[in-house]
């Protein structure tokens, strides 16, 4: 695995001058991912969404590598096509470089409208890494709920009102849906634990087939926390078991961080405006429900790790 010192010498794939919000985790994650990928030629694609919008406003671009944006739901299909053309052109002797492909999408473009395209690309086993930067809502259009939005979170289309306390449904477990496709590699990560993310990118790109990394990307305006807290919050998500960081390969689960004493979920929730209503008197039962759900999912994950490594 590349050391921090080595990474610091590599050419940046995503450079400054883009218009991401101060404290944006997604731009940090993409920068880290492209550094991790940076020892080999890398060609990328991206869904319509925050990161595409803030990095590619014509005539400027923040990308130092080739980037293709097609539409909202088809980054996986688009990069499939690029990878297919690469194989054809390579076979015909028109290209000789070894190129690796990375597709990016937000949770809207991945969990929801782009799920079919991603599912198809993995099933066809295109050799590409798909990265979902998951900020848990349609942040680009102003904080609307997605299927990645957690239970009870306030968004502009799942507002916390007097009758309904935020999003009434639980989040979709996309990482497990992808694992059910039997990819070459799958993982959950977050830029708070950046060396873990970098190691996962290296493993994903080295895997023989399609790979997937779901990166939790805290969002300052959407989640409503002070902008200097992004990395702290992304670590708290792991330490409270809200977002376990783990990986899956060859049928085996590995949890990369097991807090000896997990912090209570409320430590993660209380920093964020989207969960503020849960701290009001009378909503204690919702906090309990959320904590119970996090514990349940953690137990299931532990059992999966145990069962597949026995």
């Amino acid at each position, binding site marked *: 695995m590349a050391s921090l010192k080595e990474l610091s010498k590599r050419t940046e794939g995503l450079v400054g001058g883009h218009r991401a919000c101060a404290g944006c985790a997604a731009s940090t994650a993409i920068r880290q991912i492209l550094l991790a990928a940076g020892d080999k*030629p890398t*060609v990328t*694609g991206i869904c319509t969404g925050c990161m*595409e*919008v803030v990095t*590619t*406003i*014509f*005539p400027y*671009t923040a*990308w*130092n*590598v*080739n*980037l*293709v*944006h*097609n*539409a909202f*739901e*088809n980054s996986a*299909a*688009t*990069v*499939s*096509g*690029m*990878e*297919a*053309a*690469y*194989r*054809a*052109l390579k*076979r*015909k002797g*028109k*290209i000789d*470089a070894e*190129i690796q492909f990375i597709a990016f999408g937000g949770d809207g473009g991945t969990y929801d409208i782009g799920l*079919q*395209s991603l*599912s*198809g*690309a993995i*099933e*066809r086993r295109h050799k590409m890494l798909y990265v979902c930067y998951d900020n848990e809502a349609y942040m680009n259009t102003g904080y609307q709920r997605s299927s990645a939005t957690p239970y009870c979170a306030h968004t502009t289309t799942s507002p916390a009102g007097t009758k309904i306390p935020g999003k009434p449904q639980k989040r979709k477990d996309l990482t497990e849906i992808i694992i059910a496709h039997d990819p070459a590699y799958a993982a959950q990560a977050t830029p708070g634990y950046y060396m873990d993310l970098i190691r996962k990118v290296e493993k994903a790109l080295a895997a023989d087939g399609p790979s997937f990394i779901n990166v939790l990307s805290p969002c300052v305006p959407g989640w409503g926390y002070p902008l200097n807290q992004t990395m702290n919050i992304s670590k708290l998500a792991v330490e409270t078991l809200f977002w376990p960081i783990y990986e899956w390969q060859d049928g085996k689960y590995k949890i990369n961080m097991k807090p000896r004493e997990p912090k209570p979920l409320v430590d993660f929730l209380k920093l964020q405006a989207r969960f503020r209503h849960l701290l009001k008197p009378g909503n204690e039962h919702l906090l309990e429900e959320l904590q119970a759900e996090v514990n349940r999912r953690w137990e299931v994950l532990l059992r999966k790790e145990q069962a597949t490594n026995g």
Partner: protein
Amino acid sequence: MKTIAKTGNEAMAYAMKQINPDVVAAYPITPATEIVQIFSNYVADGEVDTEFVAVESEHSALSACVGASIAGGRVMTSTSSQGLALMHEILYIAAGNRLPIVIALVNRSLSAPINIHCDHSDTMGSREAGWMQLYCANSQEAYDSLIIALKVAEQTAVPAIVSTDAFIISHAMERLEVLEDEEVQRFIGEYKPRFSALDLENPKTFGPLDLQDYFFEHKRAQIDDFSKVLGTYNKVAQEYAELSGRYYPALEEYKTDDADVAIFTAGSTADTAKEVVDGLREQGRKVGLVRMRMWRPLPVEEIKAALGKFKAVAVMDRSDTMADFGGPVFLETRGILYDAKKKPLLTDYVYGLGGRNIDISDILRVYDEIEQVAKQGKIDKLITYLGVRGEE
């Protein structure tokens, strides 16, 4: 040159084989399925060295084609009806990115009600997407047009749809002449993309966000380039005629020189109408036919010149606009003729929706009626829904 018997679908698949594209990404849909089914056999038998990507939807088919084309590949796909509708969003993206992708299309009705037979509602619904559109009258033309369209697309950076009529052409066996593989390859030449996302020396951002300050200029430039397609088409069609002996003008005129009246139509109906014209000519009736072959971009001056000769013209539309004013060909033709010095009386016959049969007696009736219009110098009925029960 050899003579073989092939259906429209087989002819298109055969042209695709001889083109030997770098990538074909496709999803099956009746009645176009056979095209990629046959092509996948060519792939399986090593007769082409194409990457065949069997995607999970037409939306992803065209999305993958866009990716492959931006990567610098020569790219084709095939679809029909709902498939083209599902591609609709990406049609604009392919054209806006100037990607010379070619679709071998079989014209079929759009749902609802669901129907697998021919009309032109699918491609007419995509008129504004920035794709060249060619409508073929038979298998021979489908084969030839796919090869011509690819070359025009690559020279102009405008994507192309080449279409045949569902089942009438797609599944009907016909005699056709095909070129040798090497002749096709020589004709289309090696594809040299203008840019490639696999060019590592010159990294670029493709499909960026383009707001109020540049979008309009980019669209204007695209529109300007689109208007040059007809000129390139004429040149390439001429080159193809020299190679094959078969010439396909953007607008075909049949026995129009001294005609008083004409039918203006597209696709397989034009071939049927030619039979009718021949019969009527034997009776001494001055009738002709104008066939719309290229419909995007519109060959405006050609249409003006061709239709200006007649006293009356019956437009035959195989789709409707839901504008309560007939079909798209009628609407656009009226628009073209508005400022023409000489203009015919113009009526519209919407016919054959959902594969409703159109035969010689129907077309005879249209000629009878349009002759009547010419004779009395006025139109009694502007729009006729031909052969619909309860309308007559």
